[in-house]
């Protein structure tokens, strides 16, 4: 029986060359196009997804390493686009072209899950791998901080 990979809660058989990076399995095989190609070398973060909750660059991780794992993509981050970060992104009018934002949000979501009271430096360190050429960094930071602030209030 073929190995499978769980993507956004659904099992998919791995029916491609096992060296194929997850990014292309998502984009070309399953046609989940929310995850973006930016550099192909793990340098820009546009392709960030969660592997068992951990932010991972899908352009460099081969599908063979992911059998039995659970993947979350931007399409599966929340049921109705209502993840606190997605809401904060709208609140702070973050996107310009928007191409890198799925990766930014996925990276931030994974980071905030492990650090709900981040300092500015924590945010910089966590988000340093995600490039935005339009220059939305200031708003991204504000959006992340606002979510962290809300999380802290809940505790």
């Amino acid at each position, binding site marked *: 029986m073929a190995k499978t990979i769980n993507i956004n809660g659904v099992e998919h058989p791995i029916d*491609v*060359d096992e*060296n*194929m*990076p997850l990014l*292309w399995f998502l*984009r*070309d*095989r399953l*046609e989940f*196009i*929310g*995850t*973006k*190609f*930016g*550099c*192909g*070398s793990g*340098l*820009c973060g*546009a392709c960030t997804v969660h592997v068992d909750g951990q932010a991972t660059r899908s352009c460099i991780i081969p599908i063979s390493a992911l059998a039995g794992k659970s993947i979350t*993509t*931007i*399409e599966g981050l929340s049921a109705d*686009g209502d993840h606190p970060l*997605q809401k904060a*992104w*709208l609140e702070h*009018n*973050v*996107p*310009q*072209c*928007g*191409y*890198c*934002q*799925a990766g930014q*949000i996925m990276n931030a979501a994974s980071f905030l899950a492990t650090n709900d009271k981040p300092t500015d430096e924590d*945010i*910089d*360190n966590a*988000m*340093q*791998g*995600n*490039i*935005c*050429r*339009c*220059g*939305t*960094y*200031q*708003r*991204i*930071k504000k959006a992340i901080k606002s979510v962290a602030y809300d999380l802290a209030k809940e505790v």
Partner: protein
Amino acid sequence: MNEHVLHALNEWKASQKQDDTIPTPIDTSMSRRGFLKTMSIASGGLALGFTIPACSTTETKKQASAEVKFNPSGFIHLSENGDLLLYCGRCEMGQGISTALPSAVADEMEADWQRVTVKQADGNKELYGPQNTGGSASIRKMYQPMREAGAAAKEMLIIAGAKVFKTDVENCYAENHFVINKLNNQKLGFGELASLAANSPVPEKPTLKTKDQFKYIGKALDRHDQGLVVEGKRTYGVDTKLPGMKYAAISHCPVLGGTLKSVDKDAVLQMQGVIDVVEITPIKHPFSSLGGVAVVADNSWIAQRALAQLKIEWDLGPNKVYNTKEYKAQLVKNVEKPAELVTERGDVAKAFSNSAAKVSATYTGGHLCHAPMEPNASVVWVQNDSCEVWASTQSPEDIQTVLAQYLGREAKDITVHVMMAGGAFGRKFKCDYVHEAAVISKQINAPVQLIWSREEDMRTGYYHSINAQHIEASLDEQGNITGWLHRAAFPSIVSLFQQGLDRAPANALGQIDNHPFAFNNFRSETGYAPAHTRIGWYRAVYAIFYGFAFGTFADELAYKAGKDPVTFLNDVYDNSTPIKNKRKHAEQVQRSKAVLALAAKHSGIGKELPKGEGIGIAVHYSFNSYVAMAVHVKVDGDNIKVLNVDCAIDCGQVLNTDGATAQMEGAVVMGMSLSLYTEISFKDGAVVNSNFHDYPVMRTSDMPNVRVHIVDSDEKPTGLGEPGVAPFAPALSNAIFAASGTRYRDLPIKPLTV
């Protein structure tokens, strides 16, 4: 349908049968009321459909043919249920134009923005006007036509409402998606009136709102599509999927003008999933493919892997001699000696010999590549009787021209679906990647998606010019500038269109000759600088290096004159004398000084700062907009930390204050990348950089606190996509000098050795 509306509609139909005339306004010229087309009326009342030929996405067709009743221009499509679909004719790449322009339509139309859906128009200049999106020109060109289109639609809806209310038009007005009868406050929704309104003639001269009546113009509006972005549902050029579509990856000759010597396809063609290997030869057009070899496969991964295994040999051609390190040094030599005269006013030599002090400096900068996050990508399907393109592009018209030339067909037969671009910055004006996808599609007879790798994007682009400028100026006893000599040498964009050009032509030095400083004793010269690579528009274009040279040199002069930079700049503006147009010059001076004052005030320039900190300031006028930036830095050895940026802008009437603010934040980031880090280097004719590790664009930890201050202006609106980039580099360089005493005149300041 509302029975009163139905009744009015039937009355109208009956009247048409009697005199058999259908109102057909004639004027469809671009210049006046431009886009107010009347095809809907001509095609007949209720049955009017959605007749834009180029809109063929299934979704649009369904929505349109089922519901759209009122279609007074290519931009406006009102359905009976009140849904309003507005098209954006200009290309969206993140600059926010697809929110700004439709909001101007909605404002004048008195439409409810919550009922508006915005879609990107396909390539069709007849219907949408000029769509090639560059030069920060969209708002400058389209603000008025968009308002007129909205205002005309509103008047037609009011006429329809008055018919139903059986009262005079003067008794009716429109507000927030309704037409209201003033006499009794009866209301009819825009949707209810759509069919009837479609039967009115499009007014020749609709009355536009006054500024105090604006609801959306000049306010902060959310981007219409940001909800899609955060859910990963916004689709870009790279996201198009078609049944039966194949995937391609491409490798280009690394040196401009080189040709394919040989390619051994056999092994690759045996690979599972590989469909074909396609050789692409350039055509005679500046936006043609450079020439390359593509592998077509069942998916992008196989195509990329197979391409990497392909054995390709190139004849590199004469440009293999190009080395940017030596070339830049040569440019410096070329501007530090007399060059070809461009403009001369007064007597520079005399001014120099009578001066109290003289200052000279040379400024340089390297090539840049745009590196948008979405690399070049397009889908093309060439069939015997059609050619359809889905591409992130800044110029659908150029795609039509290039593919028409390649295929030997009419431009109008090339259908271009303009996709949202994942960044563009000037790169996607040039459609070489679309030409390539067309060649591949034609050869394999199937729709093809071509995606360039990041490496190809970086190594075979259209680059911002490497450049050198030398300025000499004289000062009198009071520290006023008395003479200005300005030499520039850079391979210009004109070299794309004009082979053999050995230096930048006179018009490429226009920003020097027409600078608001307007010196009486002035001389500009252009130095030898042939192109060895493709030169292209990069966000802010020549303003990047002109802004750097003017802004930094002004600061150097201020120190020489013993004045603080803000006082010095004000004095320069005050003492400048108009060259040609007195009124225009007076306006330039006044608006430049206003943004300078605003940035200075908010930055606190002049106040005491801790050791190692400094604030620098610069003003630049470009693309008809005025921007001043004050940059506050902390310098500790080689470590340069930008703390705050105060950015003041005057772009006339602002459309979307939040969009304007975002453009300035982005301009700071792009300005910071190119000031501090990014440079494309050539060795033996080929680009050395390959990806973001050796083309280190700015990342989040460097983000300063950017504060944007907008001048409240009633002047005609001008663009903001580019003007914010120019003043950053000089303001930064001036700030570093203020903080540390070190003057940087070569960009980038902290180059990575590659």
